[in-house]
């Protein structure tokens, strides 16, 4: 454990030093037609980085891009991009926990490790950032996350008005920061505590058993009403940092055909339709049920911990602002009404 403290210029210098060996991705302002959104992109100049606002989308597309090339049919071995390692700067607790979910699924599963993801993830260093203040639709602390610090990131930043505190938890990265002024660990902890207290009380309380009881929720009659305004598009899954469902597609003819992996969404009908035309989830309420149950029941049963980090992106980017908090509230009421929601495996 090492703590360094630098002022703004010191950090800029560090940034420029790191830029030589690493590609650096950070939240920057992206012009999107008439919208201007803060998203993770590769950045060259330090001033472009936006620190004080939660980015509108997560760094998912850096560790798990929408289309990744797996390999072709004549060489037969996987295609790994051997570019420079990447540093993702300024990742808040919600996005760090989201990457932890992806790691759980693709790397830490003893039965099957996804080489394509692992290769990319091993070359990525996550630099966390203590969250300055709550945004309108996030609720990470309601789900038990600590917005002020996450222990899953090897390096963690705390930015108050002038200075950057750098907490290096993983010793292998310490040499990146030697030569910088030492920081007083207790002072940093005090600042963290202050911010934790300052984090204004969240207006969203939730009391649901984790994992949600599978059969009870499956037969619940709330899903139709919950998704009445849902359009059935794929925005919530594409902009959710923990949604990792994927599909394959091929390009080119036989002899030089290439295999790709691409994002897929459980909200699409072609996600689970059989060749016979039968579709176990043929309407948007069944699909949204699968989406909520996967995050609050299936993932906790198959792995451990939730697959929702309360970042609120699915609320902000949804064309009709379908609010997952309303969905969870309805689930809570349904289970209470159903008499004593027994938690644990059904």
């Amino acid at each position, binding site marked *: 454990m090492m703590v360094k403290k630098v002022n703004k210029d010191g950090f800029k210098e560090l940034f420029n030093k790191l830029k030589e060996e690493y590609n650096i991705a950070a939240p920057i302002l992206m012009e999107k037609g008439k919208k201007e959104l803060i998203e993770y992109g590769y950045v060259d100049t330090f001033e472009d980085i936006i620190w004080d606002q939660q980015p509108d989308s997560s760094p998912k597309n850096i560790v798990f891009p929408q289309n990744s090339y797996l390999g072709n049919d004549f060489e037969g071995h996987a295609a790994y991009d051997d570019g420079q390692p990447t540093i993702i700067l300024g990742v808040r607790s919600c996005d760090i926990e989201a990457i932890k979910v992806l790691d759980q699924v693709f790397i830490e599963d003893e039965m099957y490790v996804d080489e394509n993801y692992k290769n990319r993830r091993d070359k990525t260093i996550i630099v966390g950032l203590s969250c300055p203040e709550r945004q309108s639709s996030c609720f990470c602390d309601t789900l038990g996350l600590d917005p002020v610090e996450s222990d899953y990131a090897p390096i963690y930043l705390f930015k108050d008005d002038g200075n950057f505190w750098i907490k290096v938890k993983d010793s292998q990265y310490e040499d990146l920061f030697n030569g910088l002024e030492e920081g007083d660990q207790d002072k940093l902890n005090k600042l963290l505590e202050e911010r934790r207290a300052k984090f204004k009380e969240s207006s969203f309380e939730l009391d649901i058993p984790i994992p949600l009881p599978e059969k009870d929720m499956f037969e619940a009659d709330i899903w139709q009403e919950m998704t009445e305004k849902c359009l059935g598009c794929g925005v919530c899954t594409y902009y959710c940092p923990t949604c990792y469902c994927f599909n394959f597609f091929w390009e080119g003819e036989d002899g030089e055909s290439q295999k790709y992996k691409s994002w897929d969404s459980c909200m699409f009908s072609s*996600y689970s339709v059989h060749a016979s035309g039968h579709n176990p989830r043929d309407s948007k309420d069944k699909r949204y049920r699968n989406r909520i149950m996967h995050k609050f029941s299936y993932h906790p049963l198959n792995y451990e911990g939730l697959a929702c980090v309360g970042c609120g992106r699915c609320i902000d980017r949804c064309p009709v602002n379908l609010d997952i908090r309303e969905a969870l509230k309805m689930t809570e009421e349904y289970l209470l009404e159903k008499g004593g929601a027994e938690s644990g495996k059904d």
Partner: protein
Amino acid sequence: MEKTDMLPHKAEIIEIKQETETNLNIKTFRCRFLDEDVQEEFDFKPGQFMMVTVFGVGEAPFGFASSPTEEDYVEFSVKEVGLVTEALHNMKVGDVIGIRGPFGNGFPVESTDGKNIIFIGGGIGLAPLRSLINYVMDEENRDKYEKIQLLTAFRSPEDTLYCYDYDWWEDVENTRIKYTIDEPCEGWSKCVGYPHTLIEDKLEWDLPNTRFFTCGPPIMIKFVTNRLKDLGIEPSEIVTTLEMRMSCGVGKCGRCNIGHYYVCKDGPVFTMEQLGEMPDEY
């Protein structure tokens, strides 16, 4: 032998058998891996499946139709329904496809030792069962099991599969093989009617310590398993294998789930007892 980059091994089609042609177009493909030591090490359990890649077109899951005892090739049967299956049907002997696998849990072979076995297979559903049938009928394994009975159901005489195996199955001792079609049809002397209606009078279903394996169109599985439960058969002794849309085959791509179970990883073989606990999302 876990290839973890989702890329297939190359395999050559060494034989294509046209099973049916009139109503449904079903072919059985026999393939060998191009790479000898992959062919050597490749092993699977009956009831498991593999992802077959047609290069440049796509990939689809197929259950093994051959038994692991037939070591120097793998077989799978394909009904022409879509893009990949049509591409397969246009292939000829010598063409190269990709095979990834084996995936899934396979039939509970070890715990079936010493039991009577009854197979009830419908249409293309007979393909995954055939892997287990040929395995238990193989002389190395036959004596591990008591009486083996098989009821195959097809739409019409032209839709029968694996006719070339029937004589061999009938010759194996202590077996009873029954064939049925949906409606009577002249020139057909064997049974007629849906399989679930024939269980009582065509099969010795009430032998103690019997395990049932059934696979076929979902509607048939539903009727057969319900009828067996009505007859008092233990749900844990009724084994079936499910078909879902699949892409990765290892429980990662998310689409084949029933509740928190992934049909490709925790299945595709389930007992009716397990299915009873799961939400009926299939």
